[in-house]
Protein backbone atom coordinates (compact mmCIF):
# COMPACT_ATOMS: atom_id res chain seq x y z
CA UNK A 1 0.00 0.00 0.00
CA UNK A 2 1.36 3.39 -0.94
CA UNK A 3 1.37 6.35 1.42
CA UNK A 4 -0.90 8.18 -0.99
CA UNK A 5 -3.67 5.63 -0.54
CA UNK A 6 -3.48 5.74 3.22
CA UNK A 7 -3.98 9.51 3.21
CA UNK A 8 -7.44 9.20 1.66
CA UNK A 9 -10.61 9.57 3.68
CA UNK A 10 -11.74 6.11 2.59
CA UNK A 11 -8.70 4.60 4.24
CA UNK A 12 -9.26 6.62 7.41
CA UNK A 13 -12.91 5.64 7.46
CA UNK A 14 -11.98 1.99 7.12
CA UNK A 15 -9.76 2.37 10.19
CA UNK A 16 -12.73 3.93 11.99
CA UNK A 17 -14.99 1.12 10.92
CA UNK A 18 -12.54 -1.62 11.95
CA UNK A 19 -11.84 0.00 15.32
CA UNK A 20 -15.60 0.54 15.71
CA UNK A 21 -16.31 -3.13 14.99
CA UNK A 22 -13.60 -4.14 17.45
CA UNK A 23 -15.20 -1.88 20.08
CA UNK A 24 -18.56 -3.53 19.37
CA UNK A 25 -17.10 -6.96 20.17
CA UNK A 26 -15.36 -5.61 23.26
CA UNK A 27 -18.58 -3.99 24.47
CA UNK A 28 -20.52 -7.25 24.10
CA UNK A 29 -17.89 -9.04 26.17
CA UNK A 30 -17.97 -6.27 28.76
CA UNK A 31 -21.74 -6.49 28.94
CA UNK A 32 -21.76 -10.25 29.49
CA UNK A 33 -19.31 -9.94 32.37
CA UNK A 34 -21.23 -7.08 33.94
CA UNK A 35 -24.46 -9.00 33.63
CA UNK A 36 -22.93 -11.75 35.75
CA UNK A 37 -23.01 -9.26 38.61
CA UNK A 38 -26.79 -9.42 38.45
CA UNK A 39 -27.27 -13.16 38.15
CA UNK A 40 -24.23 -14.54 39.99
CA UNK A 41 -21.96 -12.21 42.04
CA UNK A 42 -19.46 -15.01 42.74
CA UNK A 43 -19.01 -15.72 39.06
CA UNK A 44 -18.68 -11.98 38.46
CA UNK A 45 -15.89 -11.85 41.04
CA UNK A 46 -14.08 -14.80 39.52
CA UNK A 47 -14.24 -13.51 35.96
CA UNK A 48 -13.26 -10.00 37.07
CA UNK A 49 -10.23 -11.35 38.84
CA UNK A 50 -9.28 -13.38 35.79
CA UNK A 51 -9.66 -10.37 33.48
CA UNK A 52 -7.73 -8.16 35.88
CA UNK A 53 -4.76 -10.47 36.40
CA UNK A 54 -4.40 -12.56 33.25
CA UNK A 55 -1.26 -11.33 31.47
CA UNK A 56 -2.66 -12.00 27.98
CA UNK A 57 -5.62 -9.74 28.73
CA UNK A 58 -3.64 -7.18 30.70
CA UNK A 59 -0.69 -6.75 28.40
CA UNK A 60 -2.02 -7.69 24.96
CA UNK A 61 -5.78 -7.19 24.80
CA UNK A 62 -5.90 -4.07 26.97
CA UNK A 63 -3.30 -2.15 24.94
CA UNK A 64 -5.08 -3.18 21.73
CA UNK A 65 -8.31 -1.86 23.20
CA UNK A 66 -6.65 1.43 24.15
CA UNK A 67 -5.20 1.70 20.69
CA UNK A 68 -8.61 1.00 19.19
CA UNK A 69 -10.26 3.77 21.20
CA UNK A 70 -7.49 6.26 20.40
CA UNK A 71 -7.52 5.34 16.71
CA UNK A 72 -11.30 5.65 16.52
CA UNK A 73 -11.23 8.98 18.34
CA UNK A 74 -8.37 10.51 16.35
CA UNK A 75 -9.77 9.39 13.00
CA UNK A 76 -13.20 10.65 14.05
CA UNK A 77 -11.81 14.12 14.70
CA UNK A 78 -9.77 14.16 11.46
CA UNK A 79 -12.77 13.00 9.43
CA UNK A 80 -15.03 15.54 11.11
CA UNK A 81 -12.64 18.35 10.12
CA UNK A 82 -12.71 17.17 6.52
CA UNK A 83 -16.51 16.86 6.66
CA UNK A 84 -16.81 20.48 7.69
CA UNK A 85 -14.19 21.85 5.33
CA UNK A 86 -16.06 20.47 2.31
CA UNK A 87 -18.96 22.92 2.77
CA UNK A 88 -17.67 26.30 3.95
CA UNK A 89 -20.93 28.12 3.07
CA UNK A 90 -24.00 26.52 4.59
CA UNK A 91 -27.50 26.54 3.15
CA UNK A 92 -29.70 29.35 4.44
CA UNK A 93 -32.62 26.94 4.35
CA UNK A 94 -31.99 23.21 4.71
CA UNK A 95 -34.16 20.18 5.42
CA UNK A 96 -31.72 17.34 6.20
CA UNK A 97 -34.44 15.36 8.00
CA UNK A 98 -36.03 14.70 4.60
CA UNK A 99 -33.15 12.50 3.52
CA UNK A 100 -31.17 11.26 6.51
CA UNK A 101 -31.41 10.35 10.19
CA UNK A 102 -30.25 12.57 13.04
CA UNK A 103 -27.97 9.77 14.23
CA UNK A 104 -26.18 9.53 10.92
CA UNK A 105 -25.49 13.26 10.86
CA UNK A 106 -24.31 13.64 14.44
CA UNK A 107 -21.84 10.82 15.04
CA UNK A 108 -19.25 13.29 16.30
CA UNK A 109 -21.65 14.60 18.98
CA UNK A 110 -22.76 11.18 20.21
CA UNK A 111 -19.15 9.94 19.94
CA UNK A 112 -17.74 12.81 22.00
CA UNK A 113 -20.41 12.24 24.66
CA UNK A 114 -19.27 8.61 24.83
CA UNK A 115 -15.58 9.56 25.22
CA UNK A 116 -16.45 12.05 27.97
CA UNK A 117 -18.19 9.24 29.77
CA UNK A 118 -15.20 6.96 29.17
CA UNK A 119 -13.07 9.57 30.94
CA UNK A 120 -15.28 9.30 34.01
CA UNK A 121 -15.37 5.53 33.69
CA UNK A 122 -11.55 5.38 33.69
CA UNK A 123 -11.44 7.60 36.74
CA UNK A 124 -14.02 5.42 38.51
CA UNK A 125 -12.78 1.94 37.71
CA UNK A 126 -9.61 1.79 35.70
CA UNK A 127 -7.35 4.21 37.59
CA UNK A 128 -8.14 2.67 41.01
CA UNK A 129 -7.37 -0.77 39.53
CA UNK A 130 -4.03 0.43 38.19
CA UNK A 131 -3.20 2.02 41.53
CA UNK A 132 -4.09 -1.07 43.54
CA UNK A 133 -2.21 -3.41 41.25
CA UNK A 134 0.80 -1.55 39.97
CA UNK A 135 1.43 1.12 42.60
CA UNK A 136 0.40 -0.70 45.75
CA UNK A 137 1.47 -4.01 44.18
CA UNK A 138 -1.66 -5.79 45.39
CA UNK A 139 -2.73 -8.47 42.91
CA UNK A 140 -4.76 -10.45 45.43
CA UNK A 141 -8.10 -9.00 44.32
CA UNK A 142 -9.13 -8.92 47.98
CA UNK A 143 -9.66 -6.18 50.48
CA UNK A 144 -7.50 -6.29 53.59
CA UNK A 145 -8.88 -8.86 55.99
CA UNK A 146 -11.76 -9.82 53.69
CA UNK A 147 -12.63 -13.32 52.55
CA UNK A 148 -13.87 -13.09 48.94
CA UNK A 149 -12.85 -10.89 46.00
CA UNK A 150 -13.49 -7.16 46.21
CA UNK A 151 -14.87 -6.52 42.69
CA UNK A 152 -18.56 -7.02 43.37
CA UNK A 153 -18.49 -4.87 46.51
CA UNK A 154 -16.67 -2.13 44.61
CA UNK A 155 -19.19 -2.27 41.81
CA UNK A 156 -22.09 -1.92 44.24
CA UNK A 157 -20.35 0.96 45.94
CA UNK A 158 -19.93 2.87 42.64
CA UNK A 159 -23.60 2.46 41.79
CA UNK A 160 -24.85 4.00 45.02
CA UNK A 161 -24.66 7.61 43.88
CA UNK A 162 -27.81 8.80 42.03
CA UNK A 163 -25.76 11.38 40.10
CA UNK A 164 -23.48 8.62 38.79
CA UNK A 165 -26.49 6.57 37.76
CA UNK A 166 -28.00 9.46 35.82
CA UNK A 167 -24.71 10.23 34.02
CA UNK A 168 -24.25 6.52 33.34
CA UNK A 169 -27.73 6.16 31.85
CA UNK A 170 -27.34 9.28 29.71
CA UNK A 171 -24.01 8.03 28.36
CA UNK A 172 -25.65 4.82 27.22
CA UNK A 173 -28.43 6.73 25.50
CA UNK A 174 -25.73 8.53 23.50
CA UNK A 175 -23.99 5.22 22.81
CA UNK A 176 -27.28 3.77 21.55
CA UNK A 177 -27.70 6.72 19.18
CA UNK A 178 -24.07 6.29 18.04
CA UNK A 179 -24.55 2.62 17.31
CA UNK A 180 -27.97 2.92 15.66
CA UNK A 181 -26.06 4.43 12.77
CA UNK A 182 -22.56 3.11 13.44
CA UNK A 183 -23.19 -0.63 13.43
CA UNK A 184 -24.47 -0.92 9.87
CA UNK A 185 -22.32 2.00 8.71
CA UNK A 186 -19.16 0.09 9.55
CA UNK A 187 -20.15 -2.74 7.20
CA UNK A 188 -20.93 -0.30 4.40
CA UNK A 189 -17.58 1.44 4.90
CA UNK A 190 -15.53 -1.72 4.55
CA UNK A 191 -17.46 -2.49 1.38
CA UNK A 192 -19.94 -5.07 2.66
CA UNK A 193 -23.30 -4.23 1.13
CA UNK A 194 -25.33 -6.99 -0.45
CA UNK A 195 -29.09 -7.23 -0.84
CA UNK A 196 -28.95 -10.72 0.62
CA UNK A 197 -27.15 -9.78 3.86
CA UNK A 198 -27.51 -6.04 4.42
CA UNK A 199 -31.13 -6.10 5.66
CA UNK A 200 -30.12 -8.68 8.30
CA UNK A 201 -27.03 -6.68 9.31
CA UNK A 202 -29.24 -3.62 9.78
CA UNK A 203 -31.69 -5.58 11.94
CA UNK A 204 -28.95 -7.05 14.13
CA UNK A 205 -27.38 -3.59 14.35
CA UNK A 206 -30.60 -2.03 15.60
CA UNK A 207 -31.08 -4.82 18.11
CA UNK A 208 -27.51 -4.47 19.36
CA UNK A 209 -27.72 -0.67 19.53
CA UNK A 210 -30.87 -0.79 21.65
CA UNK A 211 -30.45 -3.93 23.76
CA UNK A 212 -26.82 -3.63 24.86
CA UNK A 213 -27.04 -0.04 26.16
CA UNK A 214 -30.41 -0.88 27.72
CA UNK A 215 -28.77 -3.87 29.38
CA UNK A 216 -25.99 -1.71 30.86
CA UNK A 217 -28.63 0.72 32.13
CA UNK A 218 -30.55 -2.16 33.68
CA UNK A 219 -27.45 -3.39 35.52
CA UNK A 220 -26.76 0.08 36.94
CA UNK A 221 -30.34 0.63 38.06
CA UNK A 222 -30.52 -2.89 39.49
CA UNK A 223 -27.52 -2.31 41.77
CA UNK A 224 -28.71 1.16 42.68
CA UNK A 225 -32.08 -0.14 43.83
CA UNK A 226 -30.50 -3.09 45.64
CA UNK A 227 -28.00 -0.86 47.40
CA UNK A 228 -30.64 1.57 48.62
CA UNK A 229 -32.58 -1.23 50.33
Amino acid at each position, binding site marked *: *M*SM*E*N*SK*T*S*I*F*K*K*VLMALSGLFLLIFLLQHFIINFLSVINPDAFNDVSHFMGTNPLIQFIMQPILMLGVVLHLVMGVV*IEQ*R*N*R*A*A*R*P*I*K*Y*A*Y*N*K*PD*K*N*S*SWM*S*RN*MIITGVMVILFLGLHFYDFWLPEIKTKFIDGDFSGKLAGAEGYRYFTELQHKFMSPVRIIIYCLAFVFLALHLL*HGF*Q*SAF*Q*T*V*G*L*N*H*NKYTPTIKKIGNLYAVLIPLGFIFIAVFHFINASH
Partner: protein
Amino acid sequence: MSTEKGLNITLKVWRQKNAQAKGQLDTYEMKDVSPNNSFLEMLDILNDDLINQGDNPVAFDHDCREGICGACSLHINGEPHGPGRNVTTCQLHMREFQDGETIYIEPFRAKAFPVIKDLIVDRSALDRIQHAGGYISVNTSGNTQDANAIPIEKENADKAFDAATCIGCGACVAACKNASASLFVSAKVSQFALLPQGQVEAKDRVLNMVKQAEAEGFGPCSNTGACEIECPKGISIENIARMNREFLSASLTK
Protein backbone atom coordinates in the same frame (compact mmCIF):
# COMPACT_ATOMS: atom_id res chain seq x y z
CA MET B 1 -55.48 23.62 -21.05
CA SER B 2 -55.90 23.22 -17.36
CA THR B 3 -58.60 24.81 -15.31
CA GLU B 4 -56.63 24.31 -12.09
CA LYS B 5 -56.31 27.36 -9.90
CA GLY B 6 -53.10 29.37 -10.19
CA LEU B 7 -50.71 29.50 -7.23
CA ASN B 8 -49.56 32.61 -5.45
CA ILE B 9 -46.07 31.99 -4.15
CA THR B 10 -43.21 33.87 -2.53
CA LEU B 11 -39.72 33.10 -3.81
CA LYS B 12 -36.56 33.62 -1.78
CA VAL B 13 -33.85 33.43 -4.42
CA TRP B 14 -30.08 33.50 -3.91
CA ARG B 15 -28.69 36.43 -5.90
CA GLN B 16 -24.95 36.82 -6.29
CA LYS B 17 -23.34 39.06 -8.91
CA ASN B 18 -20.21 36.97 -9.42
CA ALA B 19 -17.87 34.54 -7.74
CA GLN B 20 -16.34 37.23 -5.53
CA ALA B 21 -19.58 38.98 -4.50
CA LYS B 22 -21.20 38.18 -1.17
CA GLY B 23 -24.72 37.35 -2.30
CA GLN B 24 -28.06 37.34 -0.48
CA LEU B 25 -31.57 35.94 -0.63
CA ASP B 26 -33.96 38.27 -2.50
CA THR B 27 -37.73 38.02 -2.28
CA TYR B 28 -40.06 37.87 -5.30
CA GLU B 29 -43.84 37.52 -5.28
CA MET B 30 -45.33 35.39 -8.10
CA LYS B 31 -49.06 35.60 -8.85
CA ASP B 32 -51.25 33.00 -10.52
CA VAL B 33 -48.54 30.42 -11.37
CA SER B 34 -49.97 27.42 -13.23
CA PRO B 35 -49.57 24.15 -11.28
CA ASN B 36 -48.70 22.60 -14.63
CA ASN B 37 -45.62 24.75 -15.07
CA SER B 38 -42.34 23.02 -14.52
CA PHE B 39 -40.15 24.64 -11.90
CA LEU B 40 -37.85 26.05 -14.58
CA GLU B 41 -40.83 27.43 -16.55
CA MET B 42 -41.86 29.23 -13.39
CA LEU B 43 -38.35 30.75 -13.22
CA ASP B 44 -38.60 31.65 -16.93
CA ILE B 45 -41.76 33.62 -16.13
CA LEU B 46 -40.01 35.33 -13.22
CA ASN B 47 -37.12 36.23 -15.53
CA ASP B 48 -39.47 37.63 -18.20
CA ASP B 49 -40.97 39.86 -15.53
CA LEU B 50 -37.54 40.92 -14.27
CA ILE B 51 -36.34 41.72 -17.79
CA ASN B 52 -39.52 43.71 -18.50
CA GLN B 53 -38.88 45.70 -15.33
CA GLY B 54 -35.32 46.36 -16.46
CA ASP B 55 -33.85 44.11 -13.75
CA ASN B 56 -31.25 41.38 -14.07
CA PRO B 57 -32.75 37.94 -14.72
CA VAL B 58 -31.89 35.14 -12.29
CA ALA B 59 -29.06 33.01 -13.69
CA PHE B 60 -29.69 29.26 -13.45
CA ASP B 61 -28.35 26.20 -15.30
CA HIS B 62 -30.52 24.16 -17.65
CA ASP B 63 -30.28 22.39 -20.97
CA CYS B 64 -32.35 19.36 -21.99
CA ARG B 65 -35.29 20.05 -19.66
CA GLU B 66 -36.24 16.41 -19.89
CA GLY B 67 -34.24 15.00 -17.02
CA ILE B 68 -31.36 13.48 -18.93
CA CYS B 69 -28.50 15.98 -19.17
CA GLY B 70 -27.79 16.85 -15.55
CA ALA B 71 -27.43 20.58 -16.25
CA CYS B 72 -30.23 21.79 -14.00
CA SER B 73 -29.53 21.98 -10.30
CA LEU B 74 -30.98 24.20 -7.50
CA HIS B 75 -31.47 23.56 -3.81
CA ILE B 76 -35.23 24.04 -3.44
CA ASN B 77 -36.88 24.27 -0.02
CA GLY B 78 -33.95 22.58 1.63
CA GLU B 79 -33.44 19.73 -0.85
CA PRO B 80 -31.49 19.37 -4.10
CA HIS B 81 -33.93 19.23 -7.05
CA GLY B 82 -36.70 20.08 -4.59
CA PRO B 83 -39.20 17.89 -2.79
CA GLY B 84 -39.78 15.36 -5.60
CA ARG B 85 -38.17 11.92 -5.63
CA ASN B 86 -36.28 10.60 -8.66
CA VAL B 87 -36.79 13.88 -10.51
CA THR B 88 -34.53 16.65 -11.67
CA THR B 89 -35.53 20.27 -11.18
CA CYS B 90 -36.59 20.50 -14.82
CA GLN B 91 -39.03 17.63 -14.24
CA LEU B 92 -40.39 19.09 -11.02
CA HIS B 93 -43.80 20.71 -11.36
CA MET B 94 -45.43 23.54 -9.49
CA ARG B 95 -48.29 21.25 -8.46
CA GLU B 96 -45.86 19.89 -5.81
CA PHE B 97 -46.21 23.24 -4.02
CA GLN B 98 -49.04 24.81 -2.03
CA ASP B 99 -50.83 28.08 -2.71
CA GLY B 100 -49.28 30.75 -0.50
CA GLU B 101 -46.05 28.78 0.01
CA THR B 102 -42.63 30.39 0.41
CA ILE B 103 -40.02 28.64 -1.72
CA TYR B 104 -36.31 28.97 -0.98
CA ILE B 105 -34.01 28.59 -3.98
CA GLU B 106 -30.27 28.35 -3.39
CA PRO B 107 -27.29 27.15 -5.41
CA PHE B 108 -25.78 23.72 -4.68
CA ARG B 109 -23.32 24.38 -1.85
CA ALA B 110 -19.89 22.76 -1.73
CA LYS B 111 -16.30 23.91 -1.55
CA ALA B 112 -15.77 22.10 -4.85
CA PHE B 113 -18.78 23.86 -6.46
CA PRO B 114 -17.95 27.60 -6.38
CA VAL B 115 -20.81 29.94 -7.30
CA ILE B 116 -20.36 31.58 -10.70
CA LYS B 117 -23.46 33.77 -10.61
CA ASP B 118 -26.78 33.58 -8.74
CA LEU B 119 -27.82 29.93 -8.83
CA ILE B 120 -25.13 28.71 -11.23
CA VAL B 121 -22.21 26.81 -9.72
CA ASP B 122 -19.08 25.48 -11.39
CA ARG B 123 -19.41 21.69 -11.44
CA SER B 124 -16.35 21.05 -13.61
CA ALA B 125 -14.77 19.27 -10.62
CA LEU B 126 -16.99 16.31 -11.54
CA ASP B 127 -15.57 16.38 -15.08
CA ARG B 128 -12.03 16.32 -13.74
CA ILE B 129 -12.89 13.27 -11.62
CA GLN B 130 -14.12 11.59 -14.81
CA HIS B 131 -10.92 12.52 -16.61
CA ALA B 132 -8.92 10.91 -13.82
CA GLY B 133 -10.19 7.46 -14.77
CA GLY B 134 -13.88 7.32 -15.65
CA TYR B 135 -13.29 5.74 -19.04
CA ILE B 136 -11.95 2.65 -20.76
CA SER B 137 -9.23 2.92 -23.37
CA VAL B 138 -10.23 1.36 -26.69
CA ASN B 139 -8.38 1.34 -29.96
CA THR B 140 -10.52 2.97 -32.61
CA SER B 141 -8.73 1.06 -35.33
CA GLY B 142 -11.87 0.18 -37.21
CA ASN B 143 -11.95 -3.43 -36.05
CA THR B 144 -13.02 -2.82 -32.46
CA GLN B 145 -14.72 -5.84 -30.97
CA ASP B 146 -18.50 -5.63 -30.70
CA ALA B 147 -19.27 -5.15 -26.99
CA ASN B 148 -22.28 -7.44 -27.27
CA ALA B 149 -20.03 -10.33 -28.28
CA ILE B 150 -18.82 -10.64 -24.68
CA PRO B 151 -21.29 -12.55 -22.49
CA ILE B 152 -22.15 -10.70 -19.27
CA GLU B 153 -24.22 -11.97 -16.39
CA LYS B 154 -27.65 -10.33 -16.53
CA GLU B 155 -27.53 -9.09 -12.94
CA ASN B 156 -24.19 -7.37 -13.46
CA ALA B 157 -25.28 -5.91 -16.78
CA ASP B 158 -28.35 -4.43 -15.09
CA LYS B 159 -26.33 -3.02 -12.19
CA ALA B 160 -23.75 -1.53 -14.54
CA PHE B 161 -26.56 0.04 -16.53
CA ASP B 162 -28.18 1.44 -13.39
CA ALA B 163 -24.87 2.99 -12.37
CA ALA B 164 -24.41 4.39 -15.86
CA THR B 165 -27.66 6.33 -15.62
CA CYS B 166 -25.90 8.89 -13.40
CA ILE B 167 -26.23 12.23 -15.18
CA GLY B 168 -23.52 13.98 -13.17
CA CYS B 169 -25.89 16.59 -11.77
CA GLY B 170 -24.17 16.86 -8.39
CA ALA B 171 -27.33 16.54 -6.29
CA CYS B 172 -25.60 13.87 -4.23
CA VAL B 173 -22.90 16.38 -3.33
CA ALA B 174 -25.49 19.07 -2.61
CA ALA B 175 -27.49 16.76 -0.32
CA CYS B 176 -24.56 15.33 1.61
CA LYS B 177 -23.75 16.99 4.92
CA ASN B 178 -20.07 16.57 3.99
CA ALA B 179 -20.49 17.62 0.35
CA SER B 180 -19.12 14.21 -0.55
CA ALA B 181 -19.08 13.12 -4.18
CA SER B 182 -19.00 9.45 -3.19
CA LEU B 183 -22.25 8.52 -4.92
CA PHE B 184 -21.15 10.12 -8.18
CA VAL B 185 -17.64 8.61 -8.08
CA SER B 186 -18.99 5.21 -7.08
CA ALA B 187 -21.49 5.22 -9.95
CA LYS B 188 -18.73 6.06 -12.42
CA VAL B 189 -16.46 3.39 -10.91
CA SER B 190 -19.20 0.78 -10.77
CA GLN B 191 -20.41 1.08 -14.34
CA PHE B 192 -17.00 -0.25 -15.41
CA ALA B 193 -16.12 -2.41 -12.41
CA LEU B 194 -19.13 -4.63 -13.16
CA LEU B 195 -18.14 -5.26 -16.75
CA PRO B 196 -15.27 -7.31 -18.20
CA GLN B 197 -14.15 -4.34 -20.32
CA GLY B 198 -13.58 -2.36 -17.16
CA GLN B 199 -11.17 -4.80 -15.54
CA VAL B 200 -7.96 -3.81 -17.35
CA GLU B 201 -7.81 -0.33 -15.86
CA ALA B 202 -9.85 -1.10 -12.75
CA LYS B 203 -7.17 -0.46 -10.12
CA ASP B 204 -5.85 2.81 -11.45
CA ARG B 205 -9.38 3.98 -12.16
CA VAL B 206 -10.67 3.71 -8.62
CA LEU B 207 -7.46 4.98 -7.00
CA ASN B 208 -7.16 7.99 -9.29
CA MET B 209 -10.83 8.94 -9.23
CA VAL B 210 -11.06 8.75 -5.44
CA LYS B 211 -7.90 10.83 -5.05
CA GLN B 212 -9.10 13.39 -7.59
CA ALA B 213 -12.39 13.76 -5.74
CA GLU B 214 -10.49 14.52 -2.53
CA ALA B 215 -8.15 16.93 -4.29
CA GLU B 216 -11.20 18.81 -5.57
CA GLY B 217 -12.35 19.34 -1.99
CA PHE B 218 -15.31 16.94 -1.80
CA GLY B 219 -15.77 15.51 1.70
CA PRO B 220 -15.65 11.96 3.11
CA CYS B 221 -18.69 9.67 3.17
CA SER B 222 -20.57 9.32 6.48
CA ASN B 223 -23.06 6.80 5.05
CA THR B 224 -26.01 9.03 5.89
CA GLY B 225 -27.75 7.90 2.68
CA ALA B 226 -28.97 11.42 1.87
CA CYS B 227 -27.43 11.14 -1.62
CA GLU B 228 -29.41 8.11 -2.75
CA ILE B 229 -32.67 9.67 -1.51
CA GLU B 230 -32.04 12.89 -3.45
CA CYS B 231 -30.43 11.37 -6.55
CA PRO B 232 -32.77 11.96 -9.51
CA LYS B 233 -31.62 8.68 -11.03
CA GLY B 234 -32.04 6.56 -7.90
CA ILE B 235 -28.38 5.51 -7.82
CA SER B 236 -27.91 3.18 -4.84
CA ILE B 237 -25.27 3.53 -2.11
CA GLU B 238 -24.53 -0.12 -2.79
CA ASN B 239 -22.21 1.45 -5.37
CA ILE B 240 -20.31 3.28 -2.62
CA ALA B 241 -19.65 -0.02 -0.87
CA ARG B 242 -18.41 -1.40 -4.20
CA MET B 243 -16.13 1.62 -4.67
CA ASN B 244 -14.69 1.15 -1.17
CA ARG B 245 -14.17 -2.55 -1.92
CA GLU B 246 -12.44 -1.75 -5.21
CA PHE B 247 -10.35 0.91 -3.51
CA LEU B 248 -9.22 -1.40 -0.72
CA SER B 249 -8.31 -4.27 -3.00
CA ALA B 250 -6.49 -1.95 -5.42
CA SER B 251 -4.61 -0.41 -2.46
CA LEU B 252 -3.17 -3.79 -1.54
CA THR B 253 -1.11 -3.95 -4.71
CA LYS B 254 -0.73 -0.31 -5.81
